[in-house]
C-alpha cells in the first residue's frame, strides 16, 4: 500500500482539512464548474485559498448553515459542483433536513465538507466536538460518506468526491496528524485500504485513528499478536469484500473511531457482518457521552483513541473472545 518507509518516523504533520483545501485549489483551477460556499469559517476550514483565487465561484453565506446547504443545492441544480465547508457540528449538525431534502432527495452534486470533527478539536469542548455526524449522514439515501486518515488521503478523497457525481459527505479534523501515506498510496471510493495484514484480529478504523491503530498493531506484534489494520475511509458504501474477507480471516473485528459507538462506522460494519459473516466484534469509540475540553492528545488518551488505548481495547477484546 506504499506507506512511508519508517512508519514510526513521519516527516510531516498536517491536518486533514488542509488536504481538502489543497484539492479544492488544484481542482478548482482545472474545472470551472467547481463552486465553494462557506458559513463564516473560510480560513479555519481551509477554503480561503480557493476563495482568494476564484472569487467568482465562492459564496460567503455568513453564520447560516441551513441556507448554506440550500444555496449549494440551487447552484448544483444548474450542473455545477458545489462544495459547502463548515464545522461538522454545524453542517451536518444543524442542517440535516436541508441536506436530506435539498441535497440528497434532489440528488444534486453537492459535497459537504465537515471539518473539526471528533474529540480532537480539543479545548473548544463538547459542543464543538462532532461525534454523531457519521450516523446522521450514513442514514441518508444517495450520499457517499468519506473519512480520510491523513492530509494526503484527504486530498485524494476530495478529488475523488469532486469527480464523483452526487452528494458526498467528507469528514476532516482540526489537529495536525502525521502523514503516513504517500502519493502512490491508492485511493478509491468504496475500496478500503489494508495497511497491515494480520491473522489474529482486524482493526477497522477511519480518520486519525488509522495511524494510531498501525502503531498499536506494531506494538502488539512484539507480544505475538498479529493484527490487520484496515483504513475504512469510505463508510458508505462499505467495502463488503475486504471487511468480510478479514472477518473470515481473523474471527475478531475491532472498530475504532472518534464517533459515538451508536450509529458510526462500527455500527455499519456490524450491520454488514451480521448479515454476511457474523463475527465477534468490539465497537470502540465514544460510549454514549459528550466530549469535554482538553488538549487533543490528552483527550485521545483519556478516551482510549490513541495507540496505547487502542492496544488495551484490542487485548480486552481478545481475552473476551
Amino acid at each position, binding site marked *: 500500500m506504499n506507506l512511508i518507509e519508517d512508519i514510526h518516523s513521519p516527516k510531516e504533520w498536517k491536518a486533514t482539512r488542509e488536504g481538502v483545501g489543497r484539492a479544492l485549489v488544484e481542482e478548482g483551477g482545472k474545472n470551472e464548474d467547481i*463552486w465553494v460556499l462557506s458559513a463564516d469559517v473560510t480560513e479555519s476550514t481551509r477554503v480561503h485559498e480557493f476563495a482568494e483565487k476564484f472569487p*467568482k*465561484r465562492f*459564496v460567503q*453565506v*455568513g453564520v*447560516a448553515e*441551513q*441556507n448554506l*446547504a*440550500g*444555496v*449549494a*443545492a*440551487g*447552484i*448544483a*441544480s*444548474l450542473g*455545477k459542483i*458545489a462544495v459547502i465547508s463548515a464545522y461538522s457540528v454545524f453542517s451536518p449538525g444543524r442542517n440535516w*433536513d*436541508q441536506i436530506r*431534502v*435539498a441535497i440528497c*432527495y*434532489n*440528488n444534486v452534486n453537492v459535497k459537504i465538507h465537515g471539518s473539526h470533527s471528533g474529540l480532537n478539536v480539543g479545548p473548544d469542548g463538547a459542543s464543538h466536538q462532532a461525534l454523531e455526524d457519521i450516523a446522521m449522514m450514513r442514514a441518508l439515501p444517495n450520499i457517499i460518506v468519506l473519512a480520510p486518515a491523513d492530509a494526503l488521503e484527504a486530498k485524494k478523497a476530495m478529488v475523488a468526491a469532486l469527480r464523483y457525481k452526487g452528494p458526498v459527505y467528507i469528514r476532516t479534523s482540526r489537529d495536525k496528524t502525521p502523514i503516513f501515506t504517500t502519493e502512490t498510496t491508492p485511493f478509491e471510493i468504496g475500496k478500503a485500504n489494508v495497511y497491515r495484514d494480520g491473522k489474529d484480529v482486524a482493526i477497522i478504523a477511519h480518520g486519525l485513528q488509522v495511524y494510531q491503530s498501525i502503531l498499536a498493531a506494531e506494538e502488539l506484534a512484539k507480544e505475538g499478536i498479529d493484527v490487520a489494520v484496515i483504513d475504512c475511509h469510505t463508510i458508505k458504501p462499505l467495502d463488503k469484500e475486504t471487511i468480510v474477507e478479514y472477518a473470515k480471516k481473523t474471527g475478531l473485528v475491532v472498530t475504532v473511531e472518534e464517533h459515538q459507538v451508536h450509529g458510526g462506522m462500527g455500527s455499519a460494519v456490524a450491520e454488514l457482518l451480521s448479515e454476511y459473516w457474523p463475527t465477534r466484534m468490539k465497537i470502540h469509540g465514544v460510549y454514549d457521552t459528550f466530549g469535554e475540553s482538553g488538549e487533543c492528545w490528552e483527550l485521545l488518551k483519556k478516551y482510549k483513541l490513541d495507540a496505547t488505548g487502542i492496544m488495551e481495547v484490542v487485548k480486552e477484546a481478545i481475552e473476551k473472545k
Partner: protein
Amino acid sequence: MFKKINNIKQLKLKANEIRQDVVRMLNAAKSGHPAGAIGLADIFSALFFNVLYHDPKNPEWPERDRLILSNGHVCPVLYAALAHTGYFPREELLTLRKLGSRLQGHPHRGSLPGIENSSGPLGQGLSIAVGTAIVAKREKKKWRTYCMMSDGELDEGQCWEAAMLASKHKLGNLTAIVDRNNIQIDGYTEEVMPLEPLAEKFRSFGWNVINVDGHNIKKFIDACEESKAVFEKPTVIIAHTVPGKTISFMEFVAEWHGKSPGDELAKKALEELERERQRILEEDE
C-alpha cells in the same frame, strides 16, 4: 419556446380549468392540500401561460426561467399547470399521490419533467432560488429565478437567512412570490405566528416589495414585469389570495388547508367552477 397567452380572459379560463383539475386530482387522491392550491390557480395560470420563459417540449432548456416551488404541498396546482402547458398528458393528473405515480405527494425533482426542485419541508425554497440566481447573475444569464412561497413558511428562520443573502448579492434577477392567504395548519397566520408588518420586514431586509391582489391576473403580470425593472434589489411580490378562491365552502376556511373534498363536495365545487367558467366566457375581451 412556449407561445405566451396575453389575453387576460384566456388566462382566467386557464386558471378555471386548472382549478377544476385540482379538485378532480385531490378527490381522486383522497388526500392533499386543496385550499392553497386552488387559491394559487390565477397566479399559476399567469406564470405558466404568460410570465415564464419555458419550453414544455424541452423542459431542460438551459435558458429557461427557473420556478422554484418552496411550499411543496401546493404541488397539485403546479402539476395541473405543467400538464395544461404540455409537459405531460393531462390524464396523468389523476394518478396524484398514488403508488408508482410521477406525481408524488410533494414534488420530486427527477420524477416529472418541469420540476426544478424537491420540496415539502417548508422554508427551503428561497435558499435554492438564491443559489440559482447567484450563478445566473455572475454568469450574466438572461433568465430569471422565481420562487413561490407560502406565508406560513416564513415562520422558518431559513427564509430570512436566504432573504439576507439575496439582498447582499443584489439579486435583481430574483422574484419571490409570497402567497399571502393568511392561513396555516393550526389556523390564521396572525394568530399562530404574526407576520405583519410583512412588507416592512422584507423592505428592511433590502428587498423591493410589491403588494398585489393574487386573483387579479393582469396586476400580477404587471408586478412581475415591474420586478424585472428593478436591478439592484431582489423583489418580493406579496400576493394577497383567498384560500379556496371561487369554491364557496372552501374560501377563507382554514380546515381546508389539508383535506380532500370527498365525492359530494367535489361535485359541488366542480359545479360552482363550471358556473364561474360560463361567467368568464360572457366577459368582454
